[in-house]
């Protein structure tokens, strides 16, 4: 009976490792220039974790097999070195694995977070607030008008708190509820929160960045395929968090220009 248990343990370990090793898990399509690095990082993590997992489980299965069905009267053997050796071994093994993941993965991270946006990146502002995302394009003058939180009036469509009556720079700003961008154009997203913590997540872009209230954050990315994608809020922000999303539309340059012109006329 005990030996059977050992066999079953080994089988469970191997069967559960199989779909990971053969990459049977589906991933959303990758439309980002840095997506490949992130996906490789995930693969590496699976491999490193998998090696430790299989090692530990198969070792467990072996011990169960070897020491099951003890004959009556046989003595319990101790592992040489006792508990101290176990703790040291665990520390070294787990520590090495975690360090390896960090060292090998830092390139993917640095690519996204420590590289500045290119000088020709298109700047778009994103504001998160309970429970919607709104976006602002600078308009023909290329400048964003000042923000005045006391002027925020959502019922009147002034989500950002612009003051076009007094700020000349704000008059041509284009405020939209959808994030439309041209394909193969680097975007620098200038992020701030209207109220509390939210998060910007587009899985196809392999991008996720929290909005931290009080901070002005920026991320940059380039979309490589046209299409309609979901932007989800992935930081619990209240009773409407489940409903908080916007759409990212990646368009050809011509379609994007046309869309921006339409939106400018609506302002």
């Amino acid at each position, binding site marked *: 009976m005990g030996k059977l248990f050992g066999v079953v343990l080994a089988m469970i370990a191997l069967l559960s490792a199989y779909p990971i090793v053969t990459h049977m898990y589906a991933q959303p399509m990758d439309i980002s220039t840095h997506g490949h690095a992130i996906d490789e990082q995930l693969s590496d993590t699976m491999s490193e974790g998998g090696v430790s997992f299989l090692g530990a489980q198969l070792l467990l299965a072996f011990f169960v097999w070897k020491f099951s069905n003890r004959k009556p009267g046989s003595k319990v053997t101790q592992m040489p070195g006792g508990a101290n050796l176990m703790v040291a071994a665990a520390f070294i093994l787990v520590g090495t694995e975690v360090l390896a993941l960090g060292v090998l993965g830092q390139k993917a991270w640095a690519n996204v977070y420590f590289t500045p946006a290119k000088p020709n990146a298109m700047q778009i502002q994103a504001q998160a*607030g*309970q*429970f*919607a*995302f709104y976006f602002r394009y600078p308009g023909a003058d290329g400048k964003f008008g000042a923000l005045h939180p006391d*002027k925020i*009036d*959502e*019922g*009147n*469509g*002034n*989500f950002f708190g612009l*003051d*076009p*009556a007094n700020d000349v720079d704000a008059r041509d700003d284009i405020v*939209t*509820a*959808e994030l439309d961008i041209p394909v193969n154009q680097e975007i620098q997203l200038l992020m701030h929160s209207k109220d509390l913590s939210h998060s910007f997540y587009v899985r196809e872009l392999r991008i996720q960045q929290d909005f931290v209230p009080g901070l002005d954050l920026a991320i940059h990315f380039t979309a490589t395929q046209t299409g309609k994608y979901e932007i989800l809020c992935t930081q619990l922000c*209240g*009773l*409407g968090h489940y*409903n*908080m*999303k*916007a*759409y990212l539309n990646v368009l050809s340059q011509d379609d994007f220009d046309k869309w921006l012109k339409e939106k400018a006329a*609506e*302002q």
Partner: protein
Amino acid sequence: MKSRQRIQRLLIAAVSVLAVLTMARTKMARAKPAGGSISGRVTYTGTPAKMKVIDMSKEPACAKQHPQSITTETVVTDASNSLENVVVYISAGAPDEPAPTKSAVFDQKGCQYLPHVLAFQVNQPLEIVNSDPVAHNIHPRPMLNREWNKSQPAGSPPDVEKYDKAEFFPVKCNIHPWMSGHFAVLKNSHYSISNQDGAFSIPNLPPGKYTVTAWQEAYGNQTMDVTITAGESKTVDFVFKATPYVY
């Protein structure tokens, strides 16, 4: 002899009928109220602010209920400079009235509040309905009355509330930021909201000296003092000055 009797009977009948009719007419004349009324039009001068197109893309179930684009409703205008949704009411000169039992209904439909401005009386039942296939969280924002918000998932029964102080205040939805409406809680039944032509009418006014106030959500209040004699209909027009921006 027989014919004279017949004529007499006919005469009595005729006089009785006439008497009854005369009494009836006098009775009706006494029962009719001194039905004065104040009516008129609300218009604007100048160029009103451009209303913003509402983008409901984050709520597709509502977006598809509006195949034509819709705009914010802060300043709703039409031909001949008319202003819609202006609450015109008697602010002085009429006694406070007990609340009617019939509910005022405020509907959430297509992720919009219908009507945009709802007027009702102090302590009158206010029925808040969710006609959408999505959840809403209505959040009226008074300064004098108690502030509350209420979630209504799709298919919820109507929520009945009431306000015990007269006040004008905005209403928003915590889930859908573009939703905007107003409540006008009034002390009596003499009020009217201007329609698409800017026209309003306040009937059933006993004779007296009244102050009529017109309230527009962006342009504020205007008042006019009006004296009504028994059964008199007076015309009062209000003209608001439009501003290029409403924020």
